[in-house]
């Protein structure tokens, strides 16, 4: 390993600092004692749905549509999760069912 312990600690602290900046910044800018600007309130109301959508795509960031399995196992398994959830509406059944289905798909078929 090329870095010494002190340098490693500095690098890790940078990662901690970066993570904390992204988490604390909105709370530091829009503190409780001042009223939150209308535009930010608007964002606070609409952003969550968009952020959750972005998170779904974020999970698929290492899957390629154009090479390999063309994301087919992922797309089928997501359909399974959605169908299970619409049918039973039990979070754990949908998640466990979809995951086991995906594992079978990529271990035995693809």
């Amino acid at each position, binding site marked *: *390993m090329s*870095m010494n312990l002190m*340098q*490693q600690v*500095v*690098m*890790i602290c*940078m*990662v*901690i600092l*970066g*993570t*904390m*900046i*992204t*988490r*604390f910044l*909105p*709370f530091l800018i*829009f503190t409780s004692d001042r009223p*939150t600007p*209308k*535009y930010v*309130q*608007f*964002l*606070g109301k*609409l*952003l*969550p*749905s*968009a*952020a*959750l*959508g*972005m*998170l*779904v*795509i*974020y*999970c*698929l*960031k*290492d899957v390629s549509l154009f090479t390999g399995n063309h994301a087919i196992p*992922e797309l089928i*398994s*997501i359909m399974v*999760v*959605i169908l299970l*959830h619409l049918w039973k509406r039990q*979070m*754990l059944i*949908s*998640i*466990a069912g*979809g*995951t086991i289905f*995906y*594992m079978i798909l990529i*271990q035995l078929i693809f």
Partner: protein
Amino acid sequence: MEKRNKIKKAFGAAFPHTIPIFAGFTFLGIAYGIYMNVSGFSPMYPALMSLTIFAGSVEFVAVNLLLGAFNPLNALIITLMINSRHLFYGISMLDKYKGTGLKKFYLIFGMCDESFSINYTANIPRDVDKGWFMFFVTMLNHLYWFFGATIGGVFGSLVKFNTNGLEFVMTALFVVIFLEQWMKETTHHSALIGLGLSLLCLILFGGENFIIPSMLMILGTLTLMKKPLEKVGVYECQ
């Protein structure tokens, strides 16, 4: 005594929500621990890093940073880029984390993808203390991640069970949470904007670089649609 009951009740309400995360984080944590192990780091590294950083994807990247050249500024910039999505979570949680006292500091510290999505969407029963509920969701997630990372770091090379594909548990979790939010809301403009623009950016920019353009496009589109959205009553000014 009453306070103890309140805390107990919040724990009981929070725990079931975190069970999928237990599965996901134990697995991903173990994977991360193994990765550190085979990269030549002692188990102390994944154990301490999972406690102090608590942001899955960036911790995998941190392994590469530690193996590369000593460049703190580079490490900071990469971390800011990967974790920029937390800014969206923060803006969304401004109100929810209000009035949680000292716990607020920890809630923000531990606001990973999973803590955010559960704490934002969970229907917390009326008689359960919201602050403690969100505190336990965050703390349990933190513990699972630490537990997995440490196990992986210590027993790394001994895992024999074919776990290929288990990482899909996180995708499934977010699909379910997205679906729950979808069923709760009356209009789906924002959800479709988030899903569509992120997918577009993923195709255009690739997995490494799509987050920032996605966020900018989502912000821009929502801003442009502020007036028309207000008209259809999606958002009312207080």
